């Protein structure tokens, strides 16, 4: 403080020689992906969805082990069986998980199957039991199942459909196809979208103009009829595996315009950044500029866009199979299962046949939350 009126001087000691050899913001000095992870962690729905999807995909090779029945195993005595609850306490005592056996009864007044539970018998579930054979991870034959019902009882956790096939097991097997169709389709879409969009964005001018017109034409074509037309052109004698592959490729082929547009606009923006100009002025060739400067700065956006495109493919496959033009039996996907639920009357009487809608909704929501969370956390330099 001085004796001059109204003149305030801060009394704290001041060191003019600021150290320029230490980084200005050491807390930001981590690789980019760590910064993105810090921001992503704060978006709870994204994290939960990520965990859910990771678990779902991890479960896929082991679907056969977890499911008590194989997908095409029919039970003629249990058509449209009701879902069975798993109980723990029988007559006041804890005896482990068990189900009540059910027997079918034809209701000839309403023309439906009703099921009567035998509440006196407690059919305890067997663990790590032997059942029908299946291929673990797709190629190892095995007949071990996580749990199954004892002799004389059935364990239809989510009921059975019109041929007596366990819906729970079919949903697990269906996940294998429904969840991977998105991945194959996204790969096709990626490759096309990045290359075409990148070329348009980097070179600009006539190339860009041409690509944009193609994108606009493709996007203005109605999706569903195109899908139907293309999948109707698939030869009928092809096996389900080949059909599945072709369907995924078709979905990917029709989805690349969206990704290409995103890539193009991001390239156009990045091209004006000064570090790109700096590289060009130093003499870098376009290939180097694209691979070392543009793509790394864009990879996170790509991942977010790709993740947000997967739900469209899952829904596409479900729609196609629902209409009977995608996968067909004996292949099982959620869309194929919903094909059986086309009949309003059967949904009314046996509502559990529409259960495959649930995993579709959950998976699509999860992908959307995950993609949103990623997109929100992508720019590590912006202020909160």
């Amino acid at each position: 403080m001085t004796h001059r009126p109204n003149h305030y001087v801060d009394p704290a000691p001041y060191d003019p020689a600021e150290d320029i050899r230490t980084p200005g913001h050491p807390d930001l000095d981590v690789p980019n992906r760590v910064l993105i992870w810090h921001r992503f962690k704060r978006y709870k729905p994204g994290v939960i969805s990520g965990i859910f999807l990771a678990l779902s995909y991890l479960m896929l090779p082991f679907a056969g082990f977890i499911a008590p029945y194989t997908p095409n195993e029919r039970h003629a005595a249990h058509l449209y069986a009701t879902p069975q609850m798993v109980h723990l306490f029988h007559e006041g005592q804890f005896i482990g998980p068990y189900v009540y056996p059910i027997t079918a009864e034809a209701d000839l007044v309403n023309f439906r199957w009703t099921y009567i539970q035998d509440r006196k018998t407690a059919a305890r579930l067997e663990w790590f039991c032997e059942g029908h054979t299946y291929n673990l991870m797709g190629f190892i034959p095995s007949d071990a199942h996580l749990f199954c019902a004892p002799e004389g009882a059935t364990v239809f956790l989510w009921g059975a459909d019109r041929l007596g096939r366990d819906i729970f097991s079919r949903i697990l097997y269906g996940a294998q196809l429904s969840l991977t169709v998105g991945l194959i389709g996204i790969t096709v879409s990626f490759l096309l979208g990045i290359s075409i969009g990148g070329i348009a964005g980097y070179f600009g001018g006539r190339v860009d103009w041409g690509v944009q017109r193609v994108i606009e034409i493709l996007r203005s074509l109605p999706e569903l009829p195109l899908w139907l037309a293309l999948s109707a052109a698939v030869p009928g004698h092809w096996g389900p595996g080949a059909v599945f592959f072709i369907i995924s490729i078709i979905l990917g082929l029709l989805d690349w315009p969206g990704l290409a547009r995103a890539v193009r606009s991001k390239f156009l923006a990045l091209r004006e950044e000064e570090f790109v100009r700096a590289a060009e002025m130093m003499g870098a060739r376009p290939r180097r500029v694209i691979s070392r400067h543009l793509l790394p700065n864009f990879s996170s956006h790509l991942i977010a866009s790709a993740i947000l495109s997967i739900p469209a493919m899952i829904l596409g496959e479900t729609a196609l199979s629902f209409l009977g033009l995608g996968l067909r039996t004996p292949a099982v996907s959620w869309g194929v299962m919903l094909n059986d639920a086309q009949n309003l009357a059967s949904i009314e009487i046996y509502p559990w046949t529409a259960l495959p809608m649930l995993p579709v909704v959950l998976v699509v929501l999860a992908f959307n939350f995950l993609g949103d969370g990623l997109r929100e956390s992508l720019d590590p330099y912006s202020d909160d």
Partner: protein
Amino acid sequence: MLLQVENLSISFGKDAPIIQNVSFGVERGQTLAIVGESGSGKTICCRALLDILPGSARIDTGTARFRGLGLDIDLLNLSNKAMRSIRGDRISMIFQEPMRSLSPLHRVGHQVAEVLCLHRGLPWREARRTVKDQFSRVGFKDIQRAWNAYPFEMSGGMRQRAMIAMAIIAKPDVLIADEPTTALDVTTQAHILGLIKDLREETGMSVIFVTHDLGVVANIADSVCVMRRGRVMESGPVDTVIKKPDHGYTRKLLAAAPVIPHEAMPNDVQLAEDPILRLDSVHKTFIIKTGQFFGRVREFRAVEDVSFAIPRGKTFAIVGESGSGKSTVANMVLGALRADEGSKIRYWPKRGGEPLDVQTLTGKSRRRFQGSAQMVFQDPFSSLSPRMQILDILTEPLAIHGIGTRKERREKAAALIERVGLDPGMLRRFPHAFSGGQRQRLSIARALMLEPDLLVCDEPTSALDLSVQAQVLNLLEEIRDNLGLSYLFISHDLAVVARVADECAVMHQGLIVEMAAPDVLFTQPKHPYTKALIAACLEADVDRKVNLATISMGAGDPHSWPSEYAMCGTSLPALVETVPGHMVRIQT
């Protein structure tokens, strides 16, 4: 005391307080200047007064006592409704970027009239009349056009005037101006400052002016408050703080403020017998297509008849406001843009050797040229790729040209990073860990990797704080002397150029209007545009205040120049050497 802030502390979330115990005040009819560099917290303090802080900000302590007409309230403790009636009516604010602060969907006149409708409840006709009067007061020449225009149709200076009109139309007691002239040209800045000063004298309102420019402070402020890192370092009347500062930080700021020379040093005329770069009659016209298929084609002459030579080992500076074509010249020198027919750009890589024609370089010779002439960019935040480590960024020029093994490249990077004053341990870090000044040094190190002979610096210090500017300029000078480089220095700041350049060319709308050594240029300017630029430079000296009123008369306007300098019409006066070493564009 009209507005008195005491012990203000603000923090974000759970972190330590950003603003600590800040106190300042402004009297009725006076101007308070809040000075600080980036990160000092000056903007946050002002936003706290009007309760427009970001959502996560929390005011820990403090009072802001406002004693306007019939009011005695604490601004920090008002209800939302009460604060709404104060904003725009008793206390208003203008911002740094008028483009972002004006709604792009509404006409400017309507936006200004909205203030009157909100606070005075005037009917539309009367509001319109008042707004038009106000427009003429703030200096719009075509009032009807300003009323009907959208913000994107106006230039930066006009938008800022519209913002000022909007802020003062309700005759507030206090006007808070948050760096309103930082994004504007020097001459426009002088106009706007003059306007604010006039309005203050006319209506008796107080002004709180936030800035980082001590020149502005010396010219318009009555009292000053210097902030650093959220605390007040020094505050008091402007005479005492600027002339006899007590705190070390204030002294550092004053020392770093660039100064315009007032005395010419003995002039050693240099003939450029050994030029490293020579431009002859360089033109560049951009063709702009308006409309889609059958639109009219409009020509935009970015650069016209530019000729100069850079002597080896010297710094040549080009000064001009935005839109004068100086960046276009820099791009053409490096071959990134192709000049029009008839332009000649020649480059001598070695003393007395054969010149390279930059326009016709291809293949190997082009790569050789690119290795020999490098550029330092303006924005330190976007000129370093955020996904690459510093080591990769620095060794990239060598990797592109295929020079040296990995180990050699790394050693060279370490050597150069030491040379620019940073620690080699930083090589494995990422650019976003560094401050603006440090990044600019890294940019310079990258430019030096290929051992160039010519360095083109495109406004390298304009995005940096004042104190850091001085350090980076020192570094550039030191490197030039030690390595024998030549510089082409582009800037809009005359004072920076005065410090750094051996010869200086002033550009206006694509033409060089005057060219001389900086001392001569500043002490004996001949061209009216140069005189206008120099007059508009604000110095951090209270005794040399600029007469803002004469500047506001518009000396920068080409139509007001004497006839021998006139550039309107078809005939362009040629660049004539009036005195050895001093060229002016004048009709002879």
